[in-house]
């Protein structure tokens, strides 16, 4: 009975995080992006600096008609948002936020592989949406999504493998527990590669070629309306949370901090994740979109070799210190 209650509470906590954190990131993006462009952003909804803007957006989405194009593959079209969103919920389950046993939704032995595998499944949602919409822009978006995923999955995996080598384990709590401060300079290349590849996998600017709204409308999501569209957006922001949380846990030491690592470890994790989320927004505001060939080139000629260099470096240092 106690065990069941514990499981239920954990699931509830993860679910609440899953529903609120993306909204917080979204709102932060509204405001940060606005101020970086010399604007104010939403100011009305909710009264104080438009804090309720995303809630208002959600209400608006819920009111809209759920349109399925006549020529679309109905079932797949309707299933795609769920396929895009649910993997991120599963990933959130395994990200540890504190040093204690209970600070993770569900400890998974092969945590890194679980996380990367499930995130890869999430992209399947975009592909399904792109193909099933019966729209050439959606199809182009789907194609670009697939090409981007294939290109960036490899460096991401290699970077994660490097840190797993350093820690000697593939479980996320294990990696965080093995973290020392000097891993930061040691794994910095891997961290950069992981973060950049993760951004590309999330299709965030400047890697938003698959949804490039100025050329292919909204890529795979062009034909979506109402709640299903909102689910895709939620998936994007949940993806930011997941990516930042993962980078924190793998490369930035998670709950480690200069002080209070035992009691306030969860706070360190949250602060680092929030900082990374800010960087994600910052990059979006600063850089223009990469062209498709630049995208592929960046992955195959820069990120993959860098990741291999990092793995070699990790191996050498690991052998030397053991």
């Amino acid at each position, binding site marked *: 009975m106690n065990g069941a209650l514990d499981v239920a509470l954990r699931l509830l906590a993860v679910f609440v995080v899953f529903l609120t954190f993306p909204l917080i990131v979204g709102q932060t993006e509204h405001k940060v992006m606005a101020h970086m462009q010399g604007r104010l952003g939403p100011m009305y909804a909710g009264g104080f600096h438009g804090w309720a803007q995303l809630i208002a957006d959600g209400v608006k989405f819920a009111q809209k008609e759920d349109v399925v194009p006549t*020529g*679309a*593959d109905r079932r*797949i079209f309707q299933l795609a948002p769920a396929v895009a969103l649910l993997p991120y919920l599963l990933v959130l389950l395994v990200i540890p936020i504190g040093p204690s046993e209970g600070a993770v939704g569900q400890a*998974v*032995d*092969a945590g890194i*592989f*679980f996380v*990367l*595998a*499930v*995130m*890869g*499944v999430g*992209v*399947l949602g975009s*592909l*399904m949406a*792109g*193909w*099933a919409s*019966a729209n050439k822009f959606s*199809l182009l978006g*789907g*194609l670009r999504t*697939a*090409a981007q*995923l*294939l290109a960036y*999955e*490899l460096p991401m*995996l290699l970077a994660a493998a490097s840190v797993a080598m350093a820690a000697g*384990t*593939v479980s996320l709590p294990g990696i965080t527990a093995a973290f020392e401060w000097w891993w930061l300079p040691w794994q910095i290349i891997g961290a950069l590669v992981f973060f950049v590849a993760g951004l590309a996998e999330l299709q965030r600017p400047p890697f938003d070629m698959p949804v490039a709204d100025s050329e292919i409308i909204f890529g795979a999501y062009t034909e979506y309306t109402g709640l299903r569209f909102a689910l895709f957006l939620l998936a994007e922001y949940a993806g930011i949370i997941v990516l930042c949380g993962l980078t924190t846990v793998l490369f930035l030491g998670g709950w480690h901090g200069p002080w209070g690592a035992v009691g306030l470890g969860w706070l360190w994790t949250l602060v680092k994740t929030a900082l990374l989320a800010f960087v994600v927004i910052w990059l979006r505001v600063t850089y223009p979109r990469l062209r498709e060939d630049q995208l592929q080139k960046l992955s195959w000629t820069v990120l993959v070799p860098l990741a291999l260099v990092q793995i070699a470096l990790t191996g050498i240092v690991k052998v030397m210190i053991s």
Partner: protein
Amino acid sequence: MTPASAALTTATAAAGTHGFLSPTGVEIAFLLVGIATFGAALVTVTTKQLVHAALWLVATLGGLAVEYLLLTAEFIAWVQVLIYVGSVVVLLLFGLMLTKAPIGPSPDADSGNRWAALTVAVAAAGALVWVVVDAFRTTWIDLSGPASGSTKVTGASLFRYWVLPFEALSVLLLTALVGAIVLSRKAKADTTPTPAGTPTVPGSRREKEGAR
């Protein structure tokens, strides 16, 4: 389809040695997931909608991953999802999107030699099942003890006892990779007047498959 049925049969065979009358919960789950996986595999090869077939393949491969999980082989399960669902199916869908695969049934999806295909499939499945059942007839995975399929155990056995086949496979994949590069370069040089997009597609595809 063949691995699914093989797994199914191993399950029944394993359950047989320990008695069918008192199956545990895991065994029942294994059997049910196996049936679902088998069904998904059947739909994959019989459906006339190409993209649906690819998506049913996702279900099949995911079902297989669940089977691995139930057998405590966590690492293998996640790698299965990562490689097959995350990359191979994506590659498949990518290829399908480049074709004129229609939404709805493809009229020419039926091949004339389906009986030959069925024969080959059944023969291959039979051979695999026979080999697997013969090899692992008396093996029993202890689900309650320490996980016998965890990453640590898998890694140790892979690099301690099976390192030669592992390396041989690596060399094979490397050869495939190099071969793909060579083939695609040659094709590009030969077919300069034709549109540049056509020769690169099969080349890049083979290259990716080699890379994994």
